[in-house]
């Protein structure tokens, strides 16, 4: 206890990291379920259905399967780099999330004032870019160290693609930075408070819509997702850079990809969609019941599903989920919890929306050819994001020039 009293910041940070890791690992696992389910429904299939009610235990089954598969290392590979690559990919992907604020700068939990972020860094955005810019190594080194033609080609494609799209990714964000005048995530969000015409939120997506499109397109390419998933194009390259990987090392690449998707969606939420800010004005006080209401509505639907649709063991499993949703919903009604939950609720909602867009594009658009990918990145995305930057800069400078002149 003495130690806790002496180092409050250290202990608070460790607790936050533990919570973040637990939540993140669950999200990463269920993101695969979410993706498979949505793609299945878009393609008129059921998706995972047999492991648990609605396939809800499928991520667990997948995880156990990954753990118990044989971990193969190709004899001709570079052992050290081969093992390093998945660790590098996953660590870098997860580290970035320490910088993301999920709620307002100061909230009160059990009488303690705290931030809903692990590290509130002054130049948060630059740090995030610094960490993500190292993410290429995981993929490139995996491709090289496997000592296989498919892997090497996948790794090469991926590095080329990530270098190309990183330029437009960074440039598309500069417009937002110019308008906000800060690198700090908290200030980036709070600078979006207020409303146009009293009801349209002053989120940066309104003046920076082109910037948002450029950002999200290059973000999809950065994370190697469809339609830009050439590094792992299975028709040409078997599995791309992770062809030779098996067992949990493969799972680590998988998790890194999902973690990158989460990071990119979080960043888009903060920069363009007003972060944890509610889209409704403060005077609409009824809206603070929305988190509780949506969870309770989910519980009611699940209860109907449990008794009308499910049979046998699936009914018990779904009943547990129903109870969980109901308890969480009631918890959100507590006066101590209600103000704290508002920020994370809206943040998660927007992030989930963007993740849905990710999956939606994957199931809708066909993969690009390699030369199309390169010309799209360099000849369309880069000029457009540059133009967006120039117009934004002029927009800021022009009134100043008029006033002075």
């Amino acid at each position, binding site marked *: 206890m003495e130690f806790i009293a002496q180092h409050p910041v250290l202990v608070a940070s460790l607790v936050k990291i533990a919570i973040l890791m637990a939540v993140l690992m669950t999200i990463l696992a269920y993101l695969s379920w979410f993706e498979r389910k949505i793609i299945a429904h878009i393609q008129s299939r059921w998706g995972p259905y047999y492991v648990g009610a609605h396939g809800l235990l499928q991520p667990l089954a997948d995880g156990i399967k990954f753990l118990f598969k044989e971990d193969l290392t190709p004899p001709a590979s570079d052992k050290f780099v081969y093992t390093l690559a998945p660790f590098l990919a996953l660590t870098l992907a997860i580290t970035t999330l320490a910088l993301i604020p999920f709620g307002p700068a100061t909230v009160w939990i059990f009488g303690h004032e705290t931030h809903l972020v692990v590290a509130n860094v*002054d130049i948060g955005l*630059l740090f995030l870019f*610094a960490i993500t810019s190292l993410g290429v190594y995981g993929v490139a080194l995996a491709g*090289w160290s496997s000592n296989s033609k498919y892997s090497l080609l996948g790794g090469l494609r991926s590095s080329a693609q*990530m270098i190309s799209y990183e330029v437009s990714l960074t440039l598309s964000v500069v417009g937002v930075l110019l308008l906000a005048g800060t690198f700090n995530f908290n200030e980036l969000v709070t600078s979006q408070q207020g409303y146009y015409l009293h009801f349209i939120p002053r989120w940066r997506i309104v003046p920076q819509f082109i910037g948002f499109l450029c950002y999200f397109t290059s973000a999809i390419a950065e994370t190697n997702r469809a339609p830009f998933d050439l590094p792992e194009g299975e028709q040409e390259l078997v599995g791309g850079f992770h062809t030779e990987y098996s067992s949990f090392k493969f799972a680590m690449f998988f998790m890194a990809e999902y973690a990158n998707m989460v990071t990119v969606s979080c960043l888009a939420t903060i920069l363009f969609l007003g972060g944890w800010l509610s889209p409704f004005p403060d005077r609409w006080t009824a809206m603070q019941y929305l988190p509780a209401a949506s969870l309770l509505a989910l519980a009611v639907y699940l209860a109907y599903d449990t008794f009308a649709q499910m049979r046998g063991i699936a009914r018990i499993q779904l009943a547990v989920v129903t109870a969980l949703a109901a308890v969480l919903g009631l918890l959100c009604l507590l006066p101590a919890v209600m103000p704290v939950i508002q920020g994370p609720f809206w943040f998660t909602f927007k992030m989930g929306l963007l993740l849905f867009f990710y999956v939606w594009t994957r199931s809708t658009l066909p993969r690009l050819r390699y030369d199309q990918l390169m010309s799209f990145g360099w000849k369309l995305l880069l000029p457009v994001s540059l133009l967006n930057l120039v117009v934004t800069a002029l927009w800021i400078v022009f009134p100043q020039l008029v006033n002075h002149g």
Partner: protein
Amino acid sequence: MSLPFILFFVFAIVAVVGAILLIVAREPIHSALSLIMVMVALAALYLLLGAEFIAAVQIIVYAGAIMVLFVFVIMLLNAGVEERTNWSKIAKYAGLPLGIFLLFELAHWLARSAIGARIANGSEGTNGAVSTRALSEMLFQKYLFPFEATSILILIAILGALVLAKRDE
């Protein structure tokens, strides 16, 4: 022993070990990885000095962009394992002692210089955390001309490389 003091030695050792590995490693990719290690350790040292912006830019530019290109080219050319030669006699009998002498010379003069004295006295010296705003004011107002001149110089270098690469077509 304060935490920054311990961290300084941790990252300093990482940087030195990385630099030695860079020379010793025979596989080009291993050398490149060691260089990345050095750069990340240097960024951490900048961070300890309170230069957040420089630390972030060090990683973004050097580790994230330049070294990625290095690794890319090594992979593309599939560069083989380096071949070792026997040490030349000059390197062995003149180079090694001279190198060690230079090291001591540098350490000696650094310790006696104004910066060394400031570090030894433990005062914060030049480094109270420099804000990005102050840095940008220096770059884009006070030192605007040298900054732009350097940019144009780099642009000329890029164009030169392009011309040389395109000549035989």
